[in-house]
């Protein structure tokens, strides 16, 4: 159970991680995730700040009645709830379709690379510092 005894800090899986980091699949995964983060944060933070700004500076607008006693302020507030649910759903769907399969592939490839070579431990990591997979390990 090396997983639990290895403590966080750089360099234990450095060799293998460097291999993965230069993998085309990993770059695609990272690019997709970063684009998602930028879009996601832009949308939810922008929309929330807009709502805060309207609540502070556009109170006449917020007081307009929509239906009965329900005014724009209440409607926008409830819409913040709806958009939060919607964005969480969108993020999870995107991650399930576009990120999870890639990550699973990368993990599987890494496992087969390491499994075919030698078991990984702190000593093994130092041995593969030169990035390349151990010569004798992969047939």
């Amino acid at each position, binding site marked *: *159970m*090396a*997983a*639990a*005894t*290895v*403590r*966080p*800090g*750089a*360099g*234990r*899986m*450095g060799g*293998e*991680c*460097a291999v*993965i*980091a230069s993998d085309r699949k*990993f770059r695609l995964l*990272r690019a997709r*995730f*970063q684009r998602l*983060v930028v879009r*996601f*944060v832009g949308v939810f933070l922008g929309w*929330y*700040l807009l*709502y*805060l700004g309207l*609540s*502070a500076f556009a*109170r006449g607008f*917020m*007081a307009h009645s929509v239906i*009965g*006693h*329900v*005014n724009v*302020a*209440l409607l926008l*507030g*409830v819409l*913040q*709830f709806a958009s*939060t*649910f919607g964005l*969480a759903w969108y*993020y999870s769907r995107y*991650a399930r379709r576009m*990120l999870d399969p890639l*990550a699973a592939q990368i*993990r599987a490839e*890494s*496992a087969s690379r390491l*499994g075919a070579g030698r*078991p*990984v*431990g702190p000593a*093994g990591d130092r041995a593969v510092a030169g990035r390349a997979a151990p010569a004798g390990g992969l047939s």
Partner: protein
Amino acid sequence: MIAAEGRALTLGLFVAFILITLGITFWARATTRGADDFYAGGRAFSGMQNGVALAGDYMSAASFLGIAGLIALSGYDGFLYSIGFLVAWLLSLLLVELMRNAGRFTMADVLSFRAKRQPGVRTASAISTVTVSVFYLLAQMVGAGALVALLLGIHPGEEFAGVSADAARVLTIIVVGAVMIFYVMFGGMKATTWVQIIKAVLLIASTAVLTVLVLSRFGFNPSAMLGAAAESSARPEGFLRPGGRYGQDVAGDPLQSVLNKLDFISLGVALVLGTAGLPHIVGRFFTVPDARAARRSVNWAIGLVGGFYLMTLALGFGAAALVGHRAITEQDPAGNTAALQLAHALGTHFGGDIGGDVLLAFIGAVAFATILAVVSGLVLASSTSLAHDFFGHVLMFGRPRESQEVAVARISAFCIGTLAIGLAIVARDINVAFLVALAFAIAASANLPAIVLSLFWRRFTSTGAVAGIYGGLGGSILLVALSPVVSGKVDPVTGESLSLLPTGVDFSVFPLENPGLVSIPFGFLCAVLGTLLSSERPERAAFDELSVRSLTGVGSHRPPGRAPKHQRTP
């Protein structure tokens, strides 16, 4: 406010809750062996279980009683809190998988991943974790003391069972503190999680019952409820609009009006950015087997927290409509009893006097359970950080014996719990509600910049992380110390001090009560400058490793017995 039988019922239900949870604690004690069990519940909770527990950790008594009271008295502005508290979870959703994959037990595990200077980063995040937790803890415990006196209906000068109001408050703080210490010391994360799950289910179920009862009084027509609430409020005109409490317009003083509005925006920003940096929330990211379960748990939390805060609308406006402004302020000027009074009114309407007593007793016991669960989560988070980060990685250079570290965590839980009891007793007459907003502001200013830059900025260094944490922490505390919260705010009508310090003392040079608008950018600035100005060279290989691990889950900490093949020990 409660008849004698009602008091007995409240106490009885509360004692039942304590007995059940103590039973769980004994079970958890028997099954807790190593650090993975104590800090992370063996990483064996399912996404749903952990999501319910996350919601339980998050929905404090402040949000149950406080927001309902705020809506009941100030109308729309109480709702602003609910929105900020919920939207904040989207940021956690983005960060949860990365942190689950990269870390082991604490925020510092993620921050120190790339750090050359491990001890510096560990110490800084332990200090910030304990500060945030203790502030939040203090607010909850002082609130518990005040709540019990109100619940049992002991007014100052009166006695109940030979106990005066003040003694009852001190006694409550000690009992709550002792039970909380017991949960954490003996049951660790397993016991704390089950306490959260039970409490969250009780809280959401009882809120749902109250919501249905309230709406049924208005023929399930929300507009009719809103109209009735506005009519029986103190100011029917603006009750349903923003501006009743936050960002008020001051006639003839445009500068103060703008400052008030900036203060309001500052609060809103801190609420949204603080959640992802709250230590007791972050600690819960590590209790599930993998990143997908972590994502699922945040999705569950979003659903539950969102549903809960939507229902607080019905509680708040329902209390305004059915209990009325005057009856609420007579009981408690801050409105914290509004939800309880609403329960009593609804119970009486549907089930006569007995119905009123029963419903009130039940909701009161749920409020106690809520306080107890939230404070336990906070004590666990800070003792985990003290033991794992400070003791394990600073004092023992990252090589403590596991049993030793867990023993230190238990002792830390005892010490922090005792400290919190002591501070809460000293501060029991002070209005410490501002500490909740301050805890969020510190989490957003000190923890968030370090977390975000660690995960996303290639050039970031440990000097930057340390500078960001201390800058954000020191900045937000200093700004609050120099704000009207501490000195210089005077009630224009009565001339009484509205600040912590008495009238006459005034060193408030910073005009906003919420520091977030300044301290969050300041925290980021310190982190960036610390990185750029120091001579420390970034560990780029470590950044590659961190991004590989955080995005793919390669090498992440798995529950015992579920380690993937390639992580076998040689």
